[in-house]
């Protein structure tokens, strides 16, 4: 059994890719570190590989315990033996994206030129740069073609970018709760988050490594972003105007309301596991994402060379990347003649729905992947 002894495969893998990477923004990384995990066994013909792309604050711990938080993998309910992405059948790869902070090259990494962390000297990156880095990782793993590339939210952007950038390497793409371009509203929310980080004096123009990080600013950024991941109806159902462990309003600025307490907790727990500069770089990459713009202004052109099957799913309460965004991708795919499926699923949970329990999503995922081979 090749895989059991191959050190490239398994949990908590790290690799330094020596060939470097030229970036859309004109910069260049001399070497690229990638932290990744693999699940399942690669077939002898290497035809059963699925790449799962994570969202903004996700990581490579797709279906394994997170080393810092001790929590289960972020998509454990979707990926594993007998799950919709069945690791008894598929060889699944998940890599920490370029710019992030869980072992892949990012602003917290050491700049080999100076021996100090890059901080804001890290080059600005794009979604396509993330995809190019993943392609280099797959080369390292000896995987040519992907049976599927799967992602939600920013992961969906990568899945779209994969099929446009490496059409010959993608047989199927699953794009959940995502978009082909960041809207003005999307950019606006991200800018609020970035300005919250930069307004924290501890941010210090990004040079805080070895000192106290800008936790207060990053927590506020996370709080604002977290609201966009939920629906108004979901917040009302979960919290309403209920008070937090008290009988009456305090007429002060404590977290009187449960929703305030919840958001503060979300903000505080986030800063323990995420780097503020990574948050700046990755949100910037998302804001720059406009797949049509990369292809002469016509989204259908992005898929002209693709031979992949596509599966798009949106959720009816997702106002961050609403159903209309998915529909416009489906129209472009149909115009390009691509076999594309699309469904809007019903959920009270807003954008986060793609991560949560959804038997309908499970059925769609398993059916779509199973139909390919």
């Amino acid at each position, binding site marked *: 059994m090749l895989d059991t002894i191959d050190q490239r495969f398994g949990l908590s893998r790290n690799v330094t890719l020596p060939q470097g990477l030229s970036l859309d923004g004109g910069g260049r990384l001399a070497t690229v570190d990638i932290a990744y995990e693999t699940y399942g066994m690669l077939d002898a013909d290497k035809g059963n590989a699925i790449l799962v792309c994570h969202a903004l604050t996700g990581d490579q711990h797709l279906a394994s315990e997170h080393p810092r938080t001790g929590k289960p993998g972020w998509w454990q309910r979707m990926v594993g033996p007998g799950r919709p992405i069945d690791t008894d059948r598929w060889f699944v790869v998940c890599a920490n994206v370029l710019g992030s902070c869980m072992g892949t090259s990012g602003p917290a990494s050491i700049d080999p030129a100076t021996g100090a962390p890059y901080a804001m000297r890290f080059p600005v990156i794009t979604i396509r740069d993330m995809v190019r880095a993943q392609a280099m990782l797959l080369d390292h793993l000896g995987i040519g073609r992907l049976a599927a590339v799967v992602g939600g939210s920013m992961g969906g952007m990568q899945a779209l970018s994969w099929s446009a950038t490496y059409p010959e390497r993608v047989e199927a793409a699953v794009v959940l709760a995502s978009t082909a371009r960041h809207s003005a509203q999307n950019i606006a929310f991200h800018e609020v988050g970035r300005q919250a980080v930069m307004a924290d004096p501890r941010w210090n123009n990004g040079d805080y490594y070895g000192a106290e990080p800008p936790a207060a600013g990053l927590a506020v950024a996370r709080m604002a972003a977290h609201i966009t991941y939920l629906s108004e109806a979901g917040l009302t159902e979960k919290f309403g105007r209920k008070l937090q462990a008290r009988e009456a309003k305090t007429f002060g600025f404590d977290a009187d309301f449960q929703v305030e307490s919840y958001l503060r907790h979300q903000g505080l727990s986030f800063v323990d596991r995420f780097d503020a500069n990574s948050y700046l770089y990755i949100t910037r990459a998302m804001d720059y994402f406009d797949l049509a713009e990369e292809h002469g202004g016509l989204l259908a052109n992005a898929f002209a060379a693709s031979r992949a*099957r596509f*599966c798009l799913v949106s959720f009816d309460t997702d106002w961050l990347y609403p159903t209309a965004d998915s*529909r416009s991708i*489906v*129209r472009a795919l*149909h*115009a390009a*003649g691509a*076999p*594309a*499926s*699309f*469904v*809007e*699923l*019903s959920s009270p949970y807003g954008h986060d729905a793609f991560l949560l329990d959804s038997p*309908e999503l499970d*059925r*769609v995922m*398993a*059916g*779509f992947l*199973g*139909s*390919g081979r």
Partner: protein
Amino acid sequence: MTLRPDLSVIAANVAAGSRVLDVGCGDGALMAALRDERQVDARGLEIDAANVAAAMARGLSVAQGDADVDLAGYPDASFDYAILSQTLQTARAPDVVLDHLLRIGRRAFVSFPNFAHWRVRLSLLWGGRMPVTRQLPERWYDTPNIHHLTIDDFRAFLAERQVRVERAWFLSGDAETGSAAANLFAEHAVFLLARAEPK
């Protein structure tokens, strides 16, 4: 798996290996049969999310959408056949939907329940009530069928628009009935249409 009678007729008459758009494809039963038995490259459009999920779970390419809205996005002559089975009478603008079918497909299959079937006539004539039959099982207030039509209505409509009828099948249950008295005896009909070529 047995197909609905009108779908059996369509499945038996689609050329093998062709490209098909099934508008209002439901859970994809026809598409799956066409794919498995006639090597057809099929795409579907369906309004109901549960049906779309069921079709996707069968490995079919189905987009959730509304025939009244979303057909406009499909390029001209991009399919060999566009199929509209038991859906025409539910469209808000059946005339526009039919125009799109003949624009998108080189040919179109259209099937619909016949509102002039004798059971329907009797129900109105003797009962004075809107008919509830096996072809039209819903009541007047919960029916999706907002544009009832008869076989003769459809024939007149096609003649006005100079749409060519390549073939037609008239069905009572799953048996074929004659063309001449179809408007009285057929519960439903299947038409194979083509846009009249300019001479």
